[in-house]
């Protein structure tokens, strides 16, 4: 067969195989060139900015840029060496540099991230840097007895190189003790990783509620005659098209203390006027508003799967003697699994990264992980924000990969 193929030639005498291959390569190139402009655009406006930001989670030169002498000492002495007089001398010369470049606050902040309460030690020492005199060790200990704390020296050793994993250590609620070993921080200080877990948990709760609410109405829409279904579909699509901020505002109006829902409950005598429910600016508010906002993303994929399930299957099951419950459980439900999978994954992915709604109606306990990223952005702690963002991104991308694997990106539909 291949012999025959290799003998065939085109009209101008080229082997057919080669001609075909080059034609196909040309077609491939042409298709790719259509996509190329957009790919470049996304790369520049979207992918590179994110990549660059993620780099900040492992790169921070706040401390290292003003500590040439200390960096040298750390390079010359292996980990675990107790700081000697030369180390303190190096520290003194670096503090002098910090005083000149006004970088002590910056550098102190960098150490403060790892060992809290140390920023003022640096600013104080740098202020009087020109009066530091040998023997340096005693001078420093006179300033503050904490200067020989091994945790500070470990932190400085780590921060003396701009490449660091310190921020991930913090993000996983860990710290290094005096010997440099990783330990968990006090339970009441475990903020980040705990919030990470809580975010995934809340996203799960929201997804579950969405599924429970979406399933019956998707079923109704799928089984009604087309004209009626299209009409009811508007009730799903209108929220989908309405501004997120509008919908969040509505929930504030509805749920707040003097809001519509509380007024109705008081008017009906279900609660007293002094017993108004606190339903907004807390976790409840976040859940209610997010369920409302994400519900269409669950209804639409469910609906598109349910619509093509032939009704004859359930009728056949009934005629063979199955009860309606058995028919639902054994015949109908299994056929809706692709829709459930698509809706659940999509809603979960969107919920995990949610920012706007929790920020506006979340109050103190309804904040999600995105809000923590933003918190560190406003505190100008870029590296911490980047480390948290990376954690969030990794979680979302794993789910996204799963979505592509199980459902396929090209199955994503809007309305």
């Amino acid at each position, binding site marked *: 067969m291949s012999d025959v193929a290799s003998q065939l030639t085109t009209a101008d005498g080229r082997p057919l195989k080669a001609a075909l291959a080059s034609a196909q390569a040309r*077609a*491939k190139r042409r*298709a*790719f060139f*259509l*996509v190329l402009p*957009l*790919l470049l*655009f*996304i790369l520049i*406006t*979207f992918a590179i*900015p*994110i990549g*660059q*930001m993620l780099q900040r989670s492992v790169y921070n030169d706040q401390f290292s840029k003003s500590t040439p002498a200390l960096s040298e000492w750390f390079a010359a002495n292996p980990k675990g060496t107790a700081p000697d007089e030369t180390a303190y001398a190096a520290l003194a010369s670096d503090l002098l540099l910090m005083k000149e470049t006004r970088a002590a606050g910056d550098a102190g902040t960098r150490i403060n991230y790892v060992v809290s309460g140390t920023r003022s030690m640096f600013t104080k020492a740098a202020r009087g840097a020109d009066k530091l005199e040998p023997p340096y060790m005693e001078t420093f200990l006179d300033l503050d007895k904490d200067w020989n704390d091994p945790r500070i020296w470990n932190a400085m050793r780590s921060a003396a190189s701009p490449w660091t994993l310190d921020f991930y250590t913090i993000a996983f609620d860990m710290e290094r003790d005096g010997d440099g070993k990783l330990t968990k921080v006090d339970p009441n200080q475990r903020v980040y990783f705990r919030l990470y877990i809580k975010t995934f948990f809340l996203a799960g709760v929201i997804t579950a509620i969405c599924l429970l*609410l*979406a399933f*019956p109405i998707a079923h109704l829409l799928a089984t*009604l005659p087309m004209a009626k279904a299209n009409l009811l579909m508007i009730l799903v*699509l*209108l*929220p989908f*098209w*309405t*501004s997120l*901020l*509008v919908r969040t*505002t*509505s929930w504030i*109006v*509805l749920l*707040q203390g003097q809001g*519509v829902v509380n*007024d109705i409950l008081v008017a009906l005598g279900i609660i007293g006027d002094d017993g108004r429910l606190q339903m907004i600016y807390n976790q409840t508010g976040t859940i209610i508003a997010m369920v409302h906002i994400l*519900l269409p993303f669950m209804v639409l994929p469910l609906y598109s799967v349910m619509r093509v399930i032939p009704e004859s299957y359930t*009728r056949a099951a*009934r005629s063979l003697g199955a009860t*309606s419950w058995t028919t639902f459980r054994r015949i109908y439900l299994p056929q809706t699994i692709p829709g459930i999978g698509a809706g659940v994954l999509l809603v979960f*992915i*969107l919920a995990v*990264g949610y*920012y*706007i709604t929790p920020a*506006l109606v979340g109050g103190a306990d309804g904040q999600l992980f995105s809000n923590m*990223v*933003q918190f560190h*952005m406003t505190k100008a702690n*870029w590296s911490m924000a*980047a480390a948290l*963002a990376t954690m*969030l*991104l990794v979680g979302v991308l794993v789910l*996204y990969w799963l979505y592509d694997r199980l459902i396929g*990106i*090209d199955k*994503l*539909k*809007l*309305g």
Partner: protein
Amino acid sequence: MALPTYASQLERTWHFIYLVICTLVFVFLIAPILVIVPLSFNAEPYFTYTDKMLSFDPEGYSLRWYDSLLTTGMQAHEAVRDAAWWSDLWHNADWVKAAKNSVIIGFWATILSTVLGTLAALGLARPEMPWRRTIMAILISPMIVPIIIVATGMFFFYSNPCAIVGMDCGRLTSTYTGVIMAHAALGIPFVIITVTATMSGFDQSLIRAAASLGANPRRTFFKVVMPLILPGVISGGLFAFVASFDEVVAVLFIAGPDQQTIPREMWSGIREQISPAILAVATILVIISISLLTTVELLRRRSERLRGVSPR
């Protein structure tokens, strides 16, 4: 859907409960959007229905919040409403400025993402497209990646975009270009999804038919392909526009005081001191979304009719 005649009493009861549940979910979906509309006409600065409103007393209603929308930020809003007043309104009123910004940014972002997105969707629809799945995943990712990550990344990058090649070419933050680029990137997934969905129903043999009848590729595109996919392209563009029109986080990070959009104004309105003026904006936005939804729905039907896949 009707119950079969052989349904038992239990099934009838269950069916009734099921309909009640469905109704409640529909109410849950739509009530929050409708509730704010009458409240935006409240004569009092409250967020709940006053007794006068409930008894349909005309005194309970007013247009004061709509009026305040127009006049906030004006230099002399109490002056006579002559040409100078209108010019003051056009140039100084906060919400008018925000609306202008939203439209300008939304328009250019939509143009950018629709043109690039449609080209890419044409390429993705070709059977010989290499690495389709990966490219598709990359192009959809702006919709999936949490907005806060996108916005922080853009904040750093746009403050000095040339830093990656070690140069300094000014900043894109606090410029229209920066916000438009950010919004275009965020709108692209919507264009890709909508246009590839339209292309999937597109009969590729029509292109060959046009070619065999002597049309060159350009003529084929404008006379055969374009009219057929146009409804999809327009709805994709509308999606992209809405995405930009509703976007607040990237604006918070990238935009300067000159690029404040409607969502940005709403954001600070909700955060700082929520006044019924917000509800007036919200009502206007609901009306806009109703008209956009109608347009997209009509376009979808037209597209299905053109492609001959109408369910009817």
